[in-house]
C-alpha cells in the first residue's frame, strides 16, 4: 500500500510539473501583454518597458520558467501583478470559502443523488426508475448560472428565505451549494443506480436473501457498501474539481472563493495568480484522487494495493 501510494505521489509530481509548464507556455505564447495590461492603455512605451523589465518579462521564456519553478519548489508562488500581494496569501484567503462550498456542495449531491439512485435501482424498469433517470439527466443538463439566478430570484428575492448572494453566515451557503448539488446529484444517481444493479445480480446478495434477511438489511449491509465504490471515486474527483474553484457558481453568488479569484485574474492577465490557481487546482484534483484510492480498501477489503 505504502509503495503504491508513493508511486502515485511521484506520478503526481510529474503531472504537476507538466501542468505548470503547459499553463506557462499557453499564457506566454498567447498575444496578451501583461505589462501593457498593468500599465493601462494610455501608458507611454517607456513605462510599459520599465514594468516589463521589473517583472522579468523581458527575459527569455526558458529562463522565466526555470525561475518560476525554482521559486515554486521553495513554496514561493510569486506576487500578483495587479495587487502587490503574495499569490500564496491571495490563495490562502480563498481556500476557506471554497472548502465550505466544496463540502456543502458534495453534501447536497450525495443527499439528493444517492437515495434517488438506490430507489431507482431497486425498482428497475418502473415508472419511478424512468422518472429518476430523466430528472438525473435534467439536473446534469441544467446550466448552473441560470439555475443559480432563478434560485436567487425565487427563494431569495421573492420568498426572502436566503440572502441575495454574498458570504458570511450559513444561510449564504445554502443556495450556491444547492446549485452545485443539482448538477452533481444527477451523475451520482446514475452511477449508484448502475452499480446497485450490478451488485443486485451477485451471488452473495442472493444468499443473503435466501437465508431470510430482511430487504432493508440486505440493501444496507450487503449491497450499498459494495455499490459505493464508484461513488467514492466520484467524490474524490469532485473534491478536486470543486477545490479548483467553481467559477460560474462563485460568480453568480458573489462567493469569494478560488473561482472568483481565477476569474478576476484572467480578466487582467495576472499571470502569477492564474498560474497559482491552476497549480492549486491541479494539486487538489490529484489529492482528491489519491484520497479516493486510500478509501477503497476501507470500503472493500478485497481491494489491496500490491
Amino acid at each position, binding site marked *: 500500500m505504502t509503495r*503504491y501510494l508513493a508511486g502515485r505521489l511521484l506520478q503526481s509530481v*510529474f*503531472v*504537476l510539473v*507538466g*501542468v505548470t509548464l*503547459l*499553463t506557462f507556455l*499557453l*499564457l506566454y505564447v*498567447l*498575444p496578451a501583454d501583461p505589462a501593457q495590461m498593468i500599465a493601462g492603455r494610455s501608458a507611454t512605451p517607456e513605462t510599459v518597458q520599465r514594468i516589463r523589465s521589473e517583472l522579468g518579462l523581458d527575459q527569455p521564456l526558458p529562463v522565466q520558467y526555470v525561475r518560476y519553478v525554482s521559486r515554486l519548489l521553495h513554496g514561493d508562488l510569486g506576487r500578483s501583478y495587479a495587487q502587490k500581494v503574495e499569490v500564496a496569501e491571495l490563495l490562502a484567503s480563498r481556500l476557506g470559502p471554497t472548502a465550505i462550498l466544496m463540502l456543502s456542495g458534495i453534501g447536497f449531491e450525495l443527499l439528493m443523488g444517492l437515495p434517488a439512485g438506490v430507489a431507482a435501482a431497486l425498482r428497475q*424498469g418502473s415508472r419511478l426508475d*424512468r422518472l429518476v433517470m*430523466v430528472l438525473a*439527466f*435534467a439536473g*446534469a*443538463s*441544467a*446550466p448552473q*448560472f*441560470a439555475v443559480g*439566478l*432563478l434560485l*436567487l*430570484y425565487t427563494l431569495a*428575492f421573492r420568498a426572502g428565505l436566503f440572502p441575495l448572494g454574498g458570504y458570511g453566515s450559513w444561510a449564504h451557503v445554502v443556495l450556491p451549494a444547492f446549485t452545485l448539488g443539482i448538477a452533481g446529484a444527477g*451523475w451520482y444517481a446514475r*452511477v449508484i443506480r448502475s452499480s446497485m444493479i450490478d451488485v443486485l445480480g451477485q451471488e452473495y446478495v442472493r444468499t443473503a436473501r435466501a437465508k431470510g434477511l430482511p430487504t432493508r438489511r440486505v440493501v444496507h449491509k450487503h449491497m450499498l457498501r459494495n455499490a459505493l*465504490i*464508484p461513488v*467514492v*471515486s*466520484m467524490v*474524490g474527483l469532485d473534491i478536486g*474539481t470543486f477545490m*479548483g*474553484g467553481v*467559477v*460560474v457558481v462563485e*460568480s453568480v453568488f458573489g462567493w469569494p472563493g478560488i473561482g472568483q479569484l*481565477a*476569474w478576476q485574474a*484572467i*480578466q487582467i*492577465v495576472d499571470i502569477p495568480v492564474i498560474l497559482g*490557481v*491552476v497549480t492549486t*487546482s*491541479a494539486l487538489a*484534483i*490529484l489529492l482528491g484522487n489519491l484520497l*479516493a*484510492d486510500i478509501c*477503497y480498501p476501507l470500503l*472493500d477489503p*478485497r*481491494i*489491496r494495493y500490491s
Partner: protein
Amino acid sequence: MSDTMSVQVHVAPRTPVDRPMATLTGRSPWSRVWRDPTAMAGLLVVAAVAITALLAPVLAPYDPSAQHPDGLTADGRPLPPSGRFLLGTDLLGRDLLSRMVYGARVSLMVGVVANGAAVGIGALLGIVAGYAGGWAGALFMRLTDLMMAFPALVLAIALAAILRPSLWIVALVIGLVNWVWVARVVYSQTLSLARKEFVEAARALGAAASRILFRHLLPHLVPTLLVWGTLGISTTVLFEASLSFLGVGVRPPTPSWGGIINESQSYFLDAPWLVAFPGAAILLTSLSFNLVGDALRDALDPRRGERP
C-alpha cells in the same frame, strides 16, 4: 471473482461510455430509439432546435438586433412577455424570442463543431496510442493524466479571454479541452481489439499499420464514437453557454443563449424572463442530446440491452 480486485476503479467521466461495446448487430440501433418515448422526445427537441437554427431568418418574428421604440416601458425597462413580444424584450428593447431563435445557431454550431473536434482528436490519438502500445501508450496515458488534472473551465476561460474569440475559436477551445475523455475510451478499446485474431491475420497478410488502424480497427469503434458524438454535444452546449455567460464566449452583438443571460444579469430581479427562457432553452437542448445519446448507447451495447 478473484480475491484481489484490480485497483483501477474507473471513474465514469461526466458523460460516460464506460463499457466496451460490441459492434452493430442485426436491427438498426435507431429502431430502439424509435420505441423509447423519452428518446423520441429528445430526438424531436433536437430536430426542432436544428430547424430553428437553419430557418432562423424565417422563424424569428423580428430582426434580432432591432431596438424597438415600443420595446421598453416609458421609464426604460424591458417588457414582460406579451402579444406583441411573445417572450418579452431585453434591456435594449430587442425582441427576446428573435434573439433566442438566432441563439440556437451559436449553440448548435459550437456544440457540433466543438464536440466533433473533441471526438476527432480523441479518436485519432486514442487509436494510434492503443495500437502502438509500449512507450507510446505510456506517454499517451501520462498526457491524458495531465489533461485530466487541468481545471478545464479555467483553462478554457483563460484561452477564450486572451484570444477574444469568434465562434470557431470558442469551438476549438472547447474541443481542445474535451478530447481527453473520448481518447481514454478509444485507447482502452483499441488495446483489447489489437490483441484479437483478425488484427493478427491482417498483419500476417502484410497490411500496413495505417490500413489496420483505419480499415480494420476503426469500424469497431464506430458505435463508441457515435454515442460520444451525441452525448458529448450536451456537455459542449453547456460549456459554450457557461463561457458566453461569463462574457468570454461568442462576442456580442451575435446573440447566444448564455450571452443573453450575461447581458441581463444585472437586471434579472426585475426581468426574470430574461434568465428563465434562455436557461430553459439551454436545459432542453442539452437534455435532449443526453436522452438520445443514452438510448443510442443502450441500443449499441448488447450487454446493456437486457433492460425490460
